[in-house]
């Protein structure tokens, strides 16, 4: 690699660069440590805003509470179900749509029309009420499908995937089609195995977006048991003040002001994402790179 000797100036530059990067990394971590510390602290201390980046009055009661809490466990279940189903549906739709669209207009004369549909729907989306009516008329309210299907076609993912397919050398395909392979076999046996980086990248997007989505859970639910985790969490964290509460409302509100419990729930919410990313990171980088190169 580099054999050229470093000058004194280079060392100074390096030190500055490392320092900047370390500061950046630390500032990024502080809020995360703060949440973790609050979740492990005594709730009175936490509510008083005394906790910084290490726990005060260390205890795990919040986590014990969560694992006995029917509502949050149900919500976690809904979220997992949603992520898994979305992963399957979205990936199938995306791969199947991207392959024909990655053909040239010569090989697939209607490509342009389909492409217009994909890009057009990406730019102009529906507004809330008609969307709600559609989901309701399909009798999907309160079902997991209301969370999975409306956003199942990711136009942006399709574009990434098209670009990736196009980066795969033509010769491979040509030799295969001479052998008389159908488009399905070409897709499944040649293209897909070579496209794992982009598949992993899109899978990560799908997982993260579905895991983090909260608003559709609120709108398309029938019962509070239908809430996915982020919807449930949102109800705890966002606090739209009622101007005047009466004493009964205040009594029921108590748990909401329990900061350490809320923090513990936030930690739980982040854990799956934090666990998945390192495994996906390797594929992710090459996937996003090649997927986004120009046609």
């Amino acid at each position: 690699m580099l054999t050229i000797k470093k000058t004194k100036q280079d060392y100074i530059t390096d030190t500055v660069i490392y320092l900047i990067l370390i500061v950046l990394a630390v500032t990024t971590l502080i809020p995360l440590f703060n949440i973790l510390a609050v979740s492990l602290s005594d709730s009175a201390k936490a509510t008083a805003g005394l906790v910084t980046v290490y726990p005060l009055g260390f205890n795990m009661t919040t986590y014990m509470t969560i694992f006995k809490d029917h509502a949050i466990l149900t919500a976690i279940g809904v979220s997992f179900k949603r992520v898994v189903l979305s992963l399957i549906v979205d990936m199938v739709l995306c791969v199947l749509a991207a392959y024909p669209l990655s053909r040239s207009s010569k090989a697939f004369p209607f490509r342009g029309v389909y492409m217009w549909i994909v890009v057009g729907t990406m730019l102009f989306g529906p507004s809330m009420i008609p969307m709600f009516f559609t989901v309701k008329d399909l009798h999907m309210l309160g079902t997991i499908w209301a969370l999975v299907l409306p956003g199942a076609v990711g136009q942006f993912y399709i574009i990434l995937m098209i670009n990736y397919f196009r980066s795969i050398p033509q010769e491979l395909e040509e030799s295969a089609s001479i052998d008389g392979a159908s488009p399905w076999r070409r897709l499944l046996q040649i293209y897909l195995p070579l496209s794992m980086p982009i598949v992993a990248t899109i899978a990560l997007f799908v997982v993260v977006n579905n895991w983090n989505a909260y608003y559709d859970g609120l709108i398309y639910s029938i019962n509070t048991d239908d809430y996915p985790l982020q919807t449930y969490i949102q109800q705890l964290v966002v606090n739209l003040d009622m101007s005047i509460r009466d004493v009964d409302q205040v009594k029921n509100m108590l748990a909401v002001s329990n900061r350490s419990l809320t923090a513990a729930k936030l930690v739980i919410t982040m854990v799956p994402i934090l666990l998945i990313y390192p495994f996906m990171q390797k594929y992710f980088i090459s996937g996003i790179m090649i997927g986004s190169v120009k046609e």
Partner: protein
Amino acid sequence: MKRTIKTGVSASLLVALMLSSAACSGSNNQASGESPKSTAATATATPTPAPAEKPDPFSKMPELVEFTTGITLSTEVNMPAGESFENNDVQNWFEENLNVKPKLAWTTSDQNFAFEQKVNLLIAANNIPDVLTINVEPNGLNILSKLVKAGMVEDLTQVYNDYASPYLKESMKLGGDDVFDPVTFDGKLYAIPSLSDIETAIPVVWSRKDWLDQAGLQEPQTLDDVETALKAFKTLGKTGQLPTQQNIYNADTASFDFVFGAYNTYPGQWITGDDGNIVYGSIQPQVKEALARLAKWYSEGLIPKDFMMSDSNKAVEAVAKGAAGIFDGSWWAPWYPLPDSVKNDHNANWQATVLKGVDGIAHARGYGKIRSFVVIKKGFKHPEAIMKAMNVAQDANAKKLDWYNKLTFEAGGKYTDAKMGLLPVSVSAKDPHEISNRYKDIMAVLNGEKDINSSEPETQAQVKTIQTYQAATDKFADMALWSGANNFYVGAAGLVKNPVQQTLPAFIGTTDLMQKKKTALDDMEKQTFLEIITGKKTVDEFDSFVTKWKSMGGDDITAEVNAIAGK
């Protein structure tokens, strides 16, 4: 990549719509909150054709009447295993004795107005359940007017006249002659309201007696006293600041309501002016005086410099931390935010009072007597069955039913800690001065002036709580007990130390012009008030604000409000 990932619906627009209620007339310019007609149907309304059989408010329906409804569920719900809103002893009682049974169409969270949002969506989809209970806050009356205009709810005038129990009718009268106005449209009653006490709205000044003693001061009685105490606390090494949140008025905790109250002025409310017309509170000259006082406090450091960034939870952190010794709260502050304060410092001794105003009289704002109401879907076959259930609910809420008290109220009852309402449909008409009257009743028993057995069940329970607390060796072992005991013993006591004159709103709800113009007016008001308080503008800016407010549509809205209220 962060903005490139497309979800099915634009999430931010959705969020923007969170509080939007159902669609409705964009152009036909009728006032959409035009409810109050003083000729409203009341309990003594027009004679109606006699029903075939004599209506009995409590008789069993000949056949089972099922109705669908939607409710909120707290994340804290704590029902016995296997039981639910649809299936529990209370519901069974209604089924056996009235033949009425609720069916849950949906549930929502009890936070962030999720319920109101669901109702709005369902109105837009023309898909409301048979029976709905809607809170007036934040825009319940607006929703009601939409329901009425869209013809989606039943006219309940006759059902109420025929089937409401004498006790319910009598209790409604406690609210005054105009109590049905907000839910009456063209002389027809479209909803059965619940009346709550009006005293919860009174801003109470909470102060720490232990610190006042150290400083050699008495409990503050006036704004000047508050100022003195804050400065004295600072010399004791505390912050000497008043916990304050971004909503500077009309908020139950850590607002400036007590300051405005001291000047007998009520920003954000429609009140009756000196000439009898309805005027808007925010543009009254006394507001200017109150703002001048607040600006002075801000410049002297008695108000946190960045209070406009805090919600009430954030503002009261100072209370929990032991940094603040005075704050504005409600009478129920022993439930929130005081527990965290006494948990962190057992010596914290909080006392409550309502300040005397600049004229020596304690003034306070109020709110509309109606806090929620029940509507019945148009075309529902047996509205009288719902009315009967409401009759029982009123008795239950007044603690008049032993079986219900045993299940839901008394210590150790099956549902005492269930944290959800179990009545199939609830209505409650209470004495507007329930809290202070209850307090006097409790104290009479505690002082031995009255026999506990002859007092009402609620009084008995509160007395027992206080006595249990007083007998406890560790006062802080059970914080629910601490809160329950101190709520009346200290909190309600604060409401009666100085006799309070409450100013109730002369108009609630929204009008068509308000829908169009009030957001801009409110923005301007908030900016101006904050700029004056923080010293960015002088207090004289208030005068030009008033002029602008009037010309930007405020005068037109005022005229509309007066026209609707029929003054």
